[in-house]
Structures are given as structure tokens and as C-alpha cells.
């Protein structure tokens, strides 16, 4: 029950894109076509779902103060390596993205090409690193971290798929020249996050 509540909260109430505005670059750039958006959304679910629990593992068994007590070596047992958090998280994320990229290239080449540069750029997508950092900050345990990773990715996927459907719908709209393209997408993002605010404060 706790975990379901966490998942619902992460997807709808604390949506990583629409409540924290993380991962905006790919959210804005890859939402022109629904197919691309779906692909990127799935990739983000995959990467977040893998990296958050993996980073949890690294953080808890290597990096926090006293984490390496399991080795039995007295010097290591008192070591505090938490200053390595960021760099090791990034390394894990980069590796995971590499793997996802290879899998996509091998099995779904069409999607691989339509995602273009944004697939390797998931590495520096703020929502991915944000997921791991939130995990540290909120002190999740392992199962919570796993659920949180998948749910945060699903929240990203939900947001990017719905905005791409909206962008498809407004393709024929008579938008003022100055607002066409990104400008309109920014405004849409604002309106969407206003709509998502209907969940703010829900107490599960």
C-alpha cells in the first residue's frame, strides 16, 4: 500500500517534469511526434528504473559514511565517500544509457534514429540524475527506490506523450508567428502543470 501510494504520488502529484520542471530539454525537443515521444518516454522509464535502484546500491554499500563496514576492514569501515555521490551516479547513468542505446540500435533502429542526439543526451538529462538525487535526499530504502525510479520515469512518459498529442492537435492552430514552436510548447507546459496541480495535496 505504501509503495502504491509512493508510485501514484510520484507520477501525478510530484510529476518530475510538470512539478519539478526537470528534464525540460528533451521534453520540449522530442515531443513533436507521438511515436518519438513514446519511445523517449519508454527509454526514460527504462533508464530511471535501472539507475535509481543501482545507485541506491552503490550509495548504501560504498559511499555513505560507514557503508563499507561489510568489508570488515577497519580503515574502510569509517570512510565517508559521499563526496563521490555525483560522479558515481553520473557514471552509472552513462553506462546504462549506453546499454539502452545499443539495444535500441539493434532492435528498433527506426526509433533509434528518430531520437537522434537526445538518446545519448539522456545521460545528462536532469530528470535522470534528479531521480537518483531525490532518492538520496528522501532516504528511500531499496524497494522504495526501485518503485520511485519506475514511477518517476512513468511520470515523464505520461507528460511527454500527452504534450506530444496536444502538439499534434494544435498543428493546425493559428498561432501568432512569434509563439510558434517552442514558445507555444512552453506555454502548454505551464497550462499542463496547472492542470496537474489538481492532484497537489492529495493525501493517500
Amino acid at each position, binding site marked *: 500500500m505504501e509503495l502504491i501510494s509512493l508510485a501514484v504520488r510520484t507520477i501525478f502529484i510530484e510529476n518530475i517534469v510538470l512539478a519539478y520542471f526537470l528534464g525540460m530539454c528533451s521534453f520540449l525537443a522530442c515531443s513533436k511526434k507521438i511515436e518519438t515521444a513514446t519511445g523517449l518516454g519508454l527509454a526514460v522509464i527504462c533508464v530511471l528504473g535501472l539507475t535509481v535502484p543501482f545507485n541506491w546500491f552503490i550509495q548504501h554499500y560504498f559511499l555513505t559514511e560507514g557503508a563499507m563496514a561489510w568489508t570488515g576492514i577497519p580503515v574502510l569501515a569509517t570512510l565517508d565517500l559521499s563526496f563521490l555521490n555525483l560522479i558515481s551516479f553520473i557514471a552509472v547513468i552513462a553506462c546504462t544509457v549506453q546499454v539502452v542505446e545499443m539495444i535500441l540500435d539493434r532492435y528498433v533502429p527506426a526509433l533509434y534514429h528518430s531520437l537522434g542526439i537526445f538518446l545519448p543526451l539522456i545521460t545528462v538529462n536532469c530528470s535522470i540524475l534528479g531521480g537518483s538525487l531525490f532518492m538520496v535526499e528522501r532516504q528511500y530504502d531499496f524497494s522504495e527506490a526501485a518503485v520511485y525510479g519506475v514511477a518517476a520515469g512513468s511520470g515523464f512518459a505520461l507528460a511527454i506523450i500527452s504534450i506530444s*498529442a*496536444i502538439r499534434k492537435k494544435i498543428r493546425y*492552430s*493559428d498561432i501568432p508567428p512569434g509563439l510558434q514552436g517552442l514558445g507555444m510548447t512552453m506555454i*502548454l507546459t505551464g*497550462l499542463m502543470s*496547472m492542470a*496537474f496541480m*489538481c492532484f497537489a*495535496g492529495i493525501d493517500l
Partner: protein
Amino acid sequence: MKFLLKQMENIKPLFMPGGKLEKLYPLFEAQDTFLFTPAETTRHAPHIRGALDTKRMMITVVIALIPPFLFGMFNAGQQYHYVNQIPDMGWLDHLWRGAGIVLPIVLVSYVVGGTLEVLFSIIRRHDINEGFLVTGLLFPLTLPPTIPLWQVAAGIAFGVVIGKEIFGGTGFNVLNPALTARAFLFFAYPNEISGDGIWSVVKDPENVVEGFTGATPLGAAAVAPRGVNIVEYLSEQGFEWWTMAVGLTGGSIGETAFFACLIGAVILIVSGVGSWRIMAGCVIGLFIGSTLLNRLPAETYSSFTQLPFHYHLVYGGFAFGAVYMATDPVSAAATAKGKWIYGVLIGILVIIIRVANPAFPGGVMLAILFMNVMAPVIDHYVLQAHIRTRRKKAREESLTYVQTQER
């Protein structure tokens, strides 16, 4: 009529390209098509013959809005007399007092929104659309009678400009402009639009008799103590099913009256303007949501979860939202199956927001706004599924055709 036609023909050159008032053509066009059927026809296929253009459609909605509007005025007056303890008032007095409260709000909404609409249509050179008459009336009806007028102006300006005009005007928007305006006010000025003390105008705030705060049924149900029988609790507070269905309770101007909205629903469905699928979907969703929640153990969850379906139906803004807001053809789902999904999800969301979210007891507007965002996605997947089944069918048919040929 002939005289009018002649007058219009006389002044027409002024507004045509090259004329003096060329810039004001949208104003002329609005007047012209308001009075007469336009002479122009579409140049490219598809051609559809029909008397129902956006103008007639929007006017039908405005007509359907009259019952809740009139009742809202009556109720605002009635609540005023009740809260301020003014006895011996007839229904005409109620209506008169209510008109004094409600009409300024509607007027501000029309004037501010209308000015912006005309301004945009002149600069952007598109036609003025009657859609605004609907937005400008829908929006005030979702507000509490105590709302400050400047907030009405700010809200409708946001709704018309950000919700509609920057997309290119009526028909191009994604969210319902009236809902956008309402949500904007809701999050920008929560004090004036939610809470217990705002639902009826108080003449002299210092001397209100204790116990006459004019809470809404929703507010009362949200604070009901755990474990009590919610129906009995509400009737102790003076909220019987019938009083709520008739609508003589505190609440936003147009949304308290279930029966007035029902009349509007009949008008919309019979004229074919509002989608019955969406309305039915909303009710079904509400039923599913409330029945599921009723199954929860009463001891561990708040007693609000135990509220039966027919109470939810007449509660707060549900009927108003489902009839007038959810059925907006621009922002709702467009496919038939999509409309069902859209409606049912609205109903379920309403229950979730109402019961689980103590901050916004009136979750209807926000639920519809959220589903406005989701409607294009629903349509996309419905269409994709349709294409897939048709393709499969076509393939099977061609296969059987080939087989019969071979035989």
C-alpha cells in the same frame, strides 16, 4: 429586415479592404452574420449542408445556461437574506437581491473578455466568434458570489488570452477557456475562492449570527468526523438530499442547482449540441468511483468515503461541470469511444479529488481540466486502435477474396 439588410450593405464598403474602417472588419462581420446567414460557402471539399454553424451552436449553449443562471441569481439572493437574517422575503426579493450580486460579475466578465476578444480579432484578423458568449457566462457561474470584481476581470483575461486567443481563437484551443480562468483564480487567489466563509455575501461581517456561516455541503462533508453516518451527519447540518438537488445551499453561483443543470442537459442533448456520451460517461465514472469507495472500511477511512452515489451526483459542481464544461466540443475528446473514456475518467477523478484531497473539495473543475489535457492522447490511441482493426479486417477480406478466386 429589408431595411437592416440595406443598411448593412450600405456600410459594407467601409469595412472591405481599401475602406476607411478596414481594420474593424471583424466587428462588421460579427454583426452581419449575427443578423443574416452568410453568403459565402466553403471553397474546398468537404462540403456539408447544415443550418448548424458555430453561431447557432454557441447560442444553444447560452440558452441552455439560462436555467442555472437564473437559479444562481435566486439562490445568491436567498443565501444573502438567510445569512444576514432578513426575514419575510418573497422569491421576487430574492431574485432582485441576487441580480444585484450576480449581474455585476457577469457584466465584468463579458466586458473585459469581450474587449480582449475583439482586440485580438482585429489585430489577428480572424472573425469574432460567439464562443465567447459561452465562456463569458460559464466563467462567472463557477465563481462564488463574494468574488471581488477585479479578480473576475483578471481571471477572464487570463482565460481568454492564454486559454484561447494565443492558440488562434475559438476551435484551436486545448483547454476550456472558462476552466483555465477558473483554475488560474483558484491557484492564484485561493482565499477568495475556497474555504467556508465565502459562499454568501455578508452585509456586516462583524455582526453575523453564530452558526450561519453558510458552509457548502462539500465543506461540511469534508470535515465530518471519522466513523459517523455521513448521511445523518449531513442532514443534521441541514443538507438533505432534496435541498442539495434543488440547490438552495451555499456554493458557486451556477453550480448548486442539480435540476437547473438537468434542464440544460435536456436542451443540449435534444438539440444535439452537447455530447450525451460524455455526460453519461461522467455519471458512470462517478458511480464506479463512489461505489468502490463505499466498499472501504468505514472505521479506518474518513466518513466522506461512505457518501452514497446519489449524494455525489447532486453535490457541488458535478452536474454543472458534466453538462456544460466537459461537453465543450473543442477541448473534449472527439472520437465516440474517446468520449466514453474521457467521461468515465472525469467521473472517477472527481471522486478521487473530492474525497482524497482536503484542499480542493470542489474537484470537478480541476478534474475536467486535467482530462482536457489528456483528451488528445485518448483520441490518438482510439484512432490508432481503429486503424489497426480496419487494416486487419481489410487484410482478412482480401485474403478471403483471393481464396474464392482461386477456387
